[in-house]
């Protein structure tokens, strides 16, 4: 151990060096986003709660009730009830997502052949009531306002 090492040890050099780093951070700008006051903006690929998109012109839902999303869903949180209209078209009666089971994997969006179901930027999903986590068709249609912009245009 050389003389410099002894001096460094006696003067607590490396501890003071470490303290200078923490001291620097104490004075520098903070990283926190103060959440309820200030919201973070998710990236365009962010997978928040789902939404059902409608045709911007006619206002009809894009969904054909093909049950693809229901089938691929790994946590089986999507339930679709459909019926056939007299003119032979399938119509969507009920579209329910159990958010308490959903794992936000985005598979439903990925397999959908019509761009009907999308993941949105809506991440504020906390609730005091368990029943709020059963997302109905109406809720999902209303949630389309949160959809990422690039998806809305498609």
């Amino acid at each position: 151990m050389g003389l410099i090492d002894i001096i460094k040890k006696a003067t607590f050099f490396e501890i003071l060096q470490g303290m200078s780093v923490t001291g620097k951070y104490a004075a520098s700008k903070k990283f926190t986003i103060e959440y309820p006051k200030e919201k973070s903006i998710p990236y365009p690929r962010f997978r928040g709660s789902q939404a059902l998109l409608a045709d911007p012109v006619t206002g009809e839902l894009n969904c054909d009730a093909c049950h693809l999303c229901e089938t691929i869903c790994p946590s089986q949180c999507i339930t679709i009830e459909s019926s056939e209209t007299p003119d032979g078209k399938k119509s969507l009666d009920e579209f329910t997502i159990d958010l308490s089971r959903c794992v936000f994997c985005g598979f439903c969006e990925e397999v959908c052949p019509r761009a009907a179901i999308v993941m949105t930027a809506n991440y504020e999903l906390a609730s005091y009531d368990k029943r709020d986590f059963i997302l109905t068709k109406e809720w999902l249609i209303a949630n389309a306002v949160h959809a990422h912009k690039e998806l809305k245009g498609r």
Partner: protein
Amino acid sequence: MSAPLEEKVEQRTRPTLEELKERKARNRQRVSDNAEVMTISMGPHHPSTHGVFRMDLDLDGEVIVDVRPEVGNLHRGMEKLAESKTYHQIIPLTDRLHYVVSFSQNEGYCEAVEKLMGIEVPERAKYIRSMCHEMCRIANHIIWLGFLVMDLGAITFQQITFREREYIMDLWEMLTGARLTHSFARIGGVAKDIPDGFREKMAAALEVIPKRMAEYDRLIRNNRIFLARGKDVGIFTSEDCAAWRVTGPTLRAAGCPRDLRKDEPFAAYDQLDFNVCVEYEADVIARYVLRMNEIYESIKIIKQCLDEMPDGPVIAEDAFHVIPPKKDVLRSSAAMIQDFVQVFRGPQVPKGEVYKAVETSQGELAFYIVSDGSPKPQRLRITTPCFYHCQAMQPLLQGEMLADIVGIFCGVDVCLGSCDR
């Protein structure tokens, strides 16, 4: 790219296995037969067992006489659950093994399935996979350091490492859409191509992280308390590692240059230029130095990936095994039919069994799949490094002191989600 740690490593003398064994025997304390042993349960509700790990400790004063690890408090039946899902649906499950390095698990599973089905992955997807692997590694090693130092008592450190990890997390969100459970790899490639602006953001992050790591060095590297807590603590020689199947950084810190990225290349690692970091002291400090060096290597690999990435599709064009990309489904009817077939029927799988291991930031993660030809696996076994690390607690801790448990336990990098599955 400066790597100040690397130079110091080269100058140090390399202890031989015998020297290490001798050092280990010297630093571990021998316990007399008539010790007054107190049994105490550490975990599952303990702040530094990284989840719900439990061990029964036999203590003689401050010295650990015996350890009986107990795993399974976080068991979720993942392997059984996988038997009731098609090969596509298992991908989100693998996220939940180790939630810090989700992508590595996704990718490891997909590699195994691709090997089973014989799918050729496009070059671009391979490069993206390699890049994501290294992103996992950086994020994991950074917070590993934070947790290690926090477990040794400096709480500030954990917070500032979380701040640096946030750069990687933002990149994950940009690339995959999720911060923790990415579900990004797909059978035959990856889900999406890299988005616009990703390269610039990545370059910025790769600028910041080495600077911050220089600050970590100033904060902790020469700190006498940190060195005293880590030097010659928890020595685990390469021989012990082999006996207890401890892999990854712990093995490499014991002087064995075993790295699946070089030994059995997966993704695009056979085309990338990088070094396998090795340390020779086999103690907590060596594991720390090794991981820091690996971060520098990872940064190098990511830069290479971004530079050399060829153009092309990111998912294989294979009608029998792959869910086609969404934009094809919207445009062509053939892709739409393929989409329907893949979802309703599942991929067409040959009969057989397959084993594939990848190197995650903890160690070797392997998937063993038995297929009976149906679209669901007949049996899926996951070999996670963390399970073996937990099992090796007894030889790791015996003779050490009570306060070193946290340092050693964190030092081998254990995630209970991965261990208990």
